[in-house]
């Protein structure tokens, strides 16, 4: 009988061993990588190093200042000395936290045309208008200072400084001597550094948007709403006694005439939506005190904080995600008329209104009580112009426009849009820096969060938004350095929208209840029963091979 290879016990053992090894091979070489790959969370690669670079990068903001000299008698050497002095005065502490503001100066003589305009102009408003007409390009962020020699016609003696409607300042220099020139430096410095460019406020905003904490509360920085691509404005008329006074307001005309120019001026930068409503039988809950001397009812500033909350629920919620600014006109009830707000000195305030930071404003509008024998309800009209004057000022403050006062200068009145162009420049620069700082900080904390928690799935669109935000921030830095304010603002707006969208994406939630240690608890019951037999057979296989070797040796 021939012992076939197939039936010998050694053959059985060897098939056993080889099949066990085969299974182990499949498990380790194919199974483990497959399991690893299929249970991995999908994470798009984000530019982490680029984000860290951006966070550490210094932001440089350039400001262009042009000084135009009309007087040809001034010595060139004196002019250059003056230029040096001015440059020195403007430099100095310009931010500690990664923001640097560079002033670029340009000193030139007046052109022929400008000299002609100077001769022709009857007063400063004319001069301002004509000189601006010469300018062809819209120059955001470039300020011009015209130094005009002794001219009594234009400067009749009240003040030597006139701040124009756009970005020009006209200074009166009585003589071409160097001392007079140098006397202008301490006048120019606060106008440029503190009013037009408000370096201190910009640094503070930049720092707080980057995440630094300020222990002291600063009224101006707390007042304005955060930067947003759009804002909602709601006008509300509260009439607690519509049976006595039928209050009408032509809000449509008021908005079209008085608010629309403002909105249009800001249209390319922020979209403002306006709504209006009237509420009846809604009272403000307070007890005003009675001033017996003149029969007035008054509220002091301490009484004001409690007025807003009870009516806030009734003002209605709105649908969009933009911040909402509420402007409320309240008609006091007949038993509390006339109602005034008294300041600390017990004088009624001029505007009879107050504002709440980041919320809106309230105006108390006194109406005359109806006469004895008029039929009730009596018709009264709200004075739209007076109302809009107050609310437009409040709206400017709430949006972050500067409240600069120029004690020694005459300031041109704005047109119906209510914005002077240098105010707009300030606002653009302020918002751009806020946007940049905020979006850099957002991206940095997003990167930190995603690196720390390995369980979060990062989708493609988040990767796209982050990439877009990073590109826009880079672009914005370059544009700020070149002082192209408008483009810098628009690009910073894109950056902040993209970074907020990426950060607040609903999919970025850690997979709850799946921490590392619990993963073991899930996989062990699946793999352990299989791996133990495989492992034991591999050990048997190794023993077999060692046994075979020993046999061969013998």
């Amino acid at each position, binding site marked *: 009988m021939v012992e076939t290879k197939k039936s010998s016990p050694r053959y059985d053992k060897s098939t056993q061993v080889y099949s066990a090894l085969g299974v182990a091979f499949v498990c380790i070489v194919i199974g483990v990588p497959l399991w690893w790959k299929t249970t991995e969370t999908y994470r798009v690669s984000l530019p982490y190093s680029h984000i860290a670079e951006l966070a550490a990068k210094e932001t440089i903001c350039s400001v262009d200042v042009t000084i135009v000299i009309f007087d040809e008698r001034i010595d060139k050497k004196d002019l250059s000395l003056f230029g040096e002095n001015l440059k020195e005065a403007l430099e100095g502490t310009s931010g500690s936290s990664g923001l640097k503001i560079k002033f670029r100066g340009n000193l030139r003589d007046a052109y022929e045309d400008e000299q002609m305009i100077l001769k022709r102009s009857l007063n400063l408003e004319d001069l301002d208008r004509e000189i601006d007409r010469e300018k062809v390009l819209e120059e955001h962020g470039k300020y011009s200072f015209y130094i005009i020699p002794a001219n009594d016609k234009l400067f009749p003696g009240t003040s030597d400084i006139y701040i124009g409607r756009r970005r020009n300042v006209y200074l009166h220099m009585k003589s071409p001597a160097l001392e007079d020139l140098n006397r202008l430096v301490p006048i120019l410095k606060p106008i440029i550094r503190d009013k037009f460019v408000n370096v201190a406020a910009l640094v503070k905003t930049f720092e*707080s948007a980057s*995440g630094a*904490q300020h*222990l002291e509360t600063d*009224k101006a920085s*707390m*007042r304005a709403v*955060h930067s947003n691509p759009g804002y909602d404005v709601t006008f509300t008329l509260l009439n607690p006694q519509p049976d006595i006074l039928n209050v*009408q307001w*032509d809000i*449509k*005309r008021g908005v079209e*005439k008085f608010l629309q120019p403002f909105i249009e001026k800001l249209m390319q930068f922020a979209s403002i939506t306006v709504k209006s409503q009237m509420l009846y039988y809604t009272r403000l809950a307070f007890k005003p005190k009675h001033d017996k001397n003149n029969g007035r009812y008054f509220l002091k*500033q301490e009484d*004001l*904080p*409690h007025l*807003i*909350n009870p009516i*806030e*629920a009734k*003002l*209605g*919620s*709105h*649908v969009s*995600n933009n911040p909402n600014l509420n402007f409320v006109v309240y008609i006091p009830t007949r038993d509390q008329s006339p109602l005034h*707000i008294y*300041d600390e000195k017990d004088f009624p*305030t001029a*505007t009879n*209104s*107050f*504002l*709440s*930071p*980041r*919320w809106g404003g309230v105006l108390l509008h006194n109406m005359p009580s109806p006469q004895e024998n008029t039929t009730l309800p009596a*018709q009264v009209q709200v004075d739209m*112009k007076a109302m*809009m*004057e*107050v609310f*437009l*000022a*409040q709206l400017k*403050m709430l949006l972050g426009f500067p*409240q600069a006062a120029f004690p020694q200068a005459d300031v041109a009145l*704005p047109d*119906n849009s*209510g914005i002077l162009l240098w105010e707009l420049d300030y606002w653009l620069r302020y918002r751009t820096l806020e946007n940049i700082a905020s979006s850099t900080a957002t991206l940095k*904390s997003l990167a930190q*969060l995603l690196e720390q928690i390995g369980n979060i799935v990062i989708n493609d669109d988040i990767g796209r938004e982050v990439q877009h935000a990073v590109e826009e921030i880079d672009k914005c830095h370059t544009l700020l350095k070149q002082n192209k304010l408008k483009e810098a603002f628009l690009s910073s707006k894109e950056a902040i929208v993209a970074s907020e969208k990426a950060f*607040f*994406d*609903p999919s*970025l*939630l850690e997979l*709850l*209840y799946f921490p590392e240690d619990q993963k073991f608890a899930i996989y062990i019951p699946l793999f352990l029963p299989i791996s133990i037999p495989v492992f034991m057979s591999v050990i048997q296989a190794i023993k077999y091979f060692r046994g075979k070797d020993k046999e061969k040796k013998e």
Partner: protein
Amino acid sequence: MDQIILMIADDMACNPRNPRPAMVFNNANEQINVYGHDVEVDYRGYEVTVENFIRVMTGRLPPSTPRSKRLLSDDRSNILVYMTGHGGDGFLKFQDAEEISSIELADAFEQMWQKQRYHEVLFIIDTCQAESMYQKLYSPNILGVASSRVGEDSLSHHVDSAIGVYVIDRYTYYALEFLEKVTPESKKTLSQFLKVCPKSACVSTVGVRTDLFQRDPKKVLVTDFFGSVRNVELSPYTVTLNDTGDTGDSAASDRETCSADSCAQKKKIQRKKMSYVDQFPVEQFLKRR
């Protein structure tokens, strides 16, 4: 719309066993209806999950979420977070189905801090072993108050025999009593609020965590967190506007409103009396039978 986000299971007010439907009282004597007209429940029933809670806190809500369900806070907002229910060492139960752990809560607060979503937080928690929930917090400006220490149970106050359940917990009962006396002008400080439930009344020891809070509780008003008292400023400025071309501008057709004479026509049309449509003459059919 108010700045309160309320997440409750909301199965008690309209529960068939509630003898006073749509009313939930703070004690057996039915003193205060805490489910009154101005209570707006934002998340109820199945929406109260740990995931939704974390989403509200961190702001990662889907774009279709209405404003009233979002926490719209910024870096100047003071937030009060009050949590109550069954809990244990390091967790709080949500709806008998899931738990939120103290680590998740700490991470949520840290994400809020990173995104500057709060200025200060007052965190009140009323569960068993409540202290464990604030022990893991590591973000600044949070003041934590817990109704019991680790290892202690928080107890309920009293039972309402009409319903047959305990209606309020001890810490919440005494805290509510304190807060009912606080008016918007009140000058009561947080340190008085923190002393609210001594061991004789609460049986468990109230725990407080102040190391993350930068201000001294003795100098912080209770109304900084309760009562929504706003900052106001007098606004003395106006913008001078030009009202040229006023008289001829607004044509009568533009106006939505009407004067007494022209309204008369409109009013006549609008005052047509409303009445029901002629009903189906059922009686005739019935009479035939």
